[in-house]
């Protein structure tokens, strides 16, 4: 079967690494990765624990299809309690480290406690040891990667680590792997650093053997790859344009949050779009985009590899930023660009490089800068607070300097490292924080895409597009087209997307496959690889179980119905332009219907019948 059936438990207090068998009974109910690791977290920690205390645990989890030939089968997730939201955190990353952990013979690594001094984990197949991290603590992600590769003289080791931002306590710190892929959201990197765990270094040469039915597996995965190749989004749009293909599309439908969501269309969108990344620049005749790159096993290859214009102000006298590295994805381009009003593609690329280099979630970072710019605009923040930095909407200099300050934890960077919610509270304007459960919004304005309002409000990890991406249906017509401006049927749509996504995440596959695949395509791949009799129905049931397990954790952690909400701006201030002009998000219409469909009471609590039905 495609699980390795082994967990590595790392006790940072005692400095021990021990092997234990994977709980296969739970695997049959929660599949792997997101679902299964959440089950472990729920069973092992007090939901009310301080997220940055040693009592929290941090789990790195692969899925049964991670490390196999299934297209996109390289994902891993980091599951912990979030310091940003106080809710469950589950941040998913591609790149290569997930497959490497699996190839080393492990399904999951559970970190518990806090190391007495900074350490990193070195894992080579069955050999696991904690090593003092004196040589890398205080270094950036990129420096850490270079030092460890040189130290082990092994180009094939894979590294996930935190940067200086996490060490300095930035609440939206990411865990970056393979230099520019990240478990980005909800501050999972902050938790890792709080445990004095700097890096995880992995080399796996055991591989994945024993898929349940090899013939059926090759048939199902080959058919799946063909479907991805023939689909316009996964076969053409994403490899050529990346997720940035959305920039002009979302702007045109009037759902592009602009200047801290004051507006819903950005006049500079075309300058920071996928199309702009393909345009040769004046200085050296080269475009921003060098090539597209794939994560492990991915036949889509949406990743962007970019360079900054060598003449741009950000890289003068900084040769370390003149090489190619991870370029702008849509969410980053939006948060760093449209949300701050900055339309300088190279400034955005530079800020994105810094987010990778020191492990900041570019969505939360960009949105926090946007909030700071609005606070500056209304006079609540002045240059006295910022150390002279003029935080004006549209200022590329403010954006790039802010990235440098958060990366190193200097000056005003310490305020920005709090995230939008705490920043706006500190400066007396909590309503200006565009967050749900303390997490910053991604790049779809819910006034122009109604279903996303409900998806954000009810997401178990705070505002997020990857927990129920109804944009697929409301804008792109996948799997069926719905009207983005109506609330009709959106409760049902959101629930269906949430449950299916929870199942897909738990397999180790990438959610981007669902532009082309449904559970009808995915279940045969899982079933051929794994015991358990996986069908679209049982996977969807597992997804609903996972969703409710996450919900239950959040309720036990102290969250309530009041946290299933949107900022006033999105509920009271109508969109000023575009197709949604005059509209707000009608969450109040959708939320009661959603609770009912979920089998929750009017307070958003799963009823005993619902829990029993799901085996919780």
């Amino acid at each position, binding site marked *: 079967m495609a699980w390795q059936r082994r967990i590595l438990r790392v006790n940072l207090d005692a400095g021990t690494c021990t092997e234990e068998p994977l709980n296969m009974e739970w695997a049959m109910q929660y599949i792997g990765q997101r679902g299964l690791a959440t089950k472990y977290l729920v069973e092992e920690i007090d939901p009310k624990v301080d997220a940055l205390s040693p009592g929290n645990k941090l789990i790195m989890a692969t899925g049964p299809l991670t490390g196999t030939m299934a297209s996109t089968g390289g994902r891993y997730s980091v599951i912990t309690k979030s310091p940003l939201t106080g809710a469950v955190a589950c941040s998913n990353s591609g790149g290569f480290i997930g497959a490497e952990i699996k190839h080393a013979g492990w399904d999951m690594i559970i970190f518990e406690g806090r190391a007495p001094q900074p350490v990193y984990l070195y894992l080579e197949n069955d050999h696991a040891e904690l090593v003092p991290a004196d040589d890398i603590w205080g270094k950036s992600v990129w420096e850490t990667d270079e030092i460890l590769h040189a130290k082990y003289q092994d180009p*094939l080791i894979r590294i996930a680590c935190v940067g200086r931002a996490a060490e300095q306590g930035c609440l939206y710190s990411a865990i970056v792997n393979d230099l520019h892929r990240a478990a980005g959201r909800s501050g999972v990197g902050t938790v890792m650093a709080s445990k004095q765990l700097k890096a995880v270094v992995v080399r796996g040469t055991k591989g*994945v053997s024993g898929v349940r039915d090899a013939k059926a597996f090759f048939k199902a995965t080959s058919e799946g790859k063909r479907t991805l190749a023939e689909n316009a989004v996964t076969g053409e749009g994403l*490899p050529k344009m990346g997720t940035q293909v959305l920039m002009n599309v979302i702007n045109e439908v009037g759902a592009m949050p602009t200047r801290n969501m004051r507006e819903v269309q950005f006049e500079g969108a075309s300058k920071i779009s996928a199309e702009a990344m393909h345009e040769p620049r004046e200085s050296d005749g080269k475009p921003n985009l060098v*090539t597209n790159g*794939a994560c492990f096993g991915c*036949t889509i290859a949406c990743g962007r590899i970019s360079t900054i214009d060598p003449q741009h102000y950000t890289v003068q006298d900084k040769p370390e930023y003149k090489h*190619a*590295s991870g370029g702008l994805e849509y969410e980053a381009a939006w948060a760093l660009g449209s949300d701050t009003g900055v339309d300088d593609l190279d400034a955005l690329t530079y800020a994105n490089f810094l987010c990778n280099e020191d492990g900041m979630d570019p969505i939360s970072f960009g949105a926090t800068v946007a909030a700071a710019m609005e606070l500056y605009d209304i006079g609540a923040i002045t240059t006295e607070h910022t150390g002279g930095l003029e935080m004006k909407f549209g200022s590329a200099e403010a954006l790039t300097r802010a990235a440098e300050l958060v990366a190193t934890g200097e000056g005003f960077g310490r305020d920005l490292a709090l995230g939008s919610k705490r920043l706006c509270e500190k400066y007396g304007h909590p309503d200006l924080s565009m967050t749900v459960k303390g997490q910053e919004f991604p790049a779809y304005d819910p006034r122009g895409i109604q279903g996303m309002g409900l998806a954000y409000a009810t997401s178990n990890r705070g505002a997020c597009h990857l927990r129920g991406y109804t944009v697929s249906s409301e804008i792109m017509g996948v799997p069926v087209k719905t009207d983005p401006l109506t609330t009709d049927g959106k409760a049902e749509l959101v629930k269906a997307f949430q449950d299916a996504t929870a199942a897909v995440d738990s397999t180790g596959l990438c959610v981007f496959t669902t532009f082309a695949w449904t559970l009808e395509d995915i279940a045969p791949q899982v079933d051929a690889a794994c015991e358990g009799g996986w069908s679209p129905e049982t996977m969807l049931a597992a997804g609903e179980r996972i969703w409710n397990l996450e919900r239950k954790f959040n309720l036990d952690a102290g969250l309530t119905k009041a946290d299933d909400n949107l900022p006033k701006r999105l509920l009271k201030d109508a969109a000023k332009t575009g197709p949604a002009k005059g509209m707000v998000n009608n969450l109040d219409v959708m939320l009661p219907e959603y609770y009912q469909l979920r089998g929750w009471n009017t307070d958003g609590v799963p009823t005993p019948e619902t829990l029993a039905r799901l085996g919780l």
Partner: protein
Amino acid sequence: MMLKALQLEPEKCTGCLQCEMACSYENEGLFNPSKSRIKVFTFHDEGRFAPYTCSQCAEAWCMHACPVEAIVINEATGAKDVLEDVCVGCKVCTIACPFGTVNYNADTGKVIKCDLCGGEPACADACPTEAITYVDAEHTGLERMRAHAAQTIPAN
């Protein structure tokens, strides 16, 4: 029968490693890039990826260097095959090969190298971008020639 060869076109490679998994599965029965006979190299700072494997030299250094004649020409495919029963794991071939494409497998104590999967290379089949194809050995440059030829004709 026409002799065929692997044609590698790095500019089409995305670095996904499907080829490495296909190779390890075909030859070892599991998904394990570390046991693949084809390797994809990432040149991160330049944003380039390049698949690389044995090019099946006609006068193969590895074959000539082998003291026990464990590397032989496969008449059907032109590949230089390693006879596992004969190989003693001395690794002289790994030193002789100028390209580094013969390597030692510590698990078996033998060397491994590309054998074109007996004429149906799994890597070419798995590659999603046609960066690896299996074509007429005498015309691996045909597509590049075609592209340059097109430039010699004025556009209409």
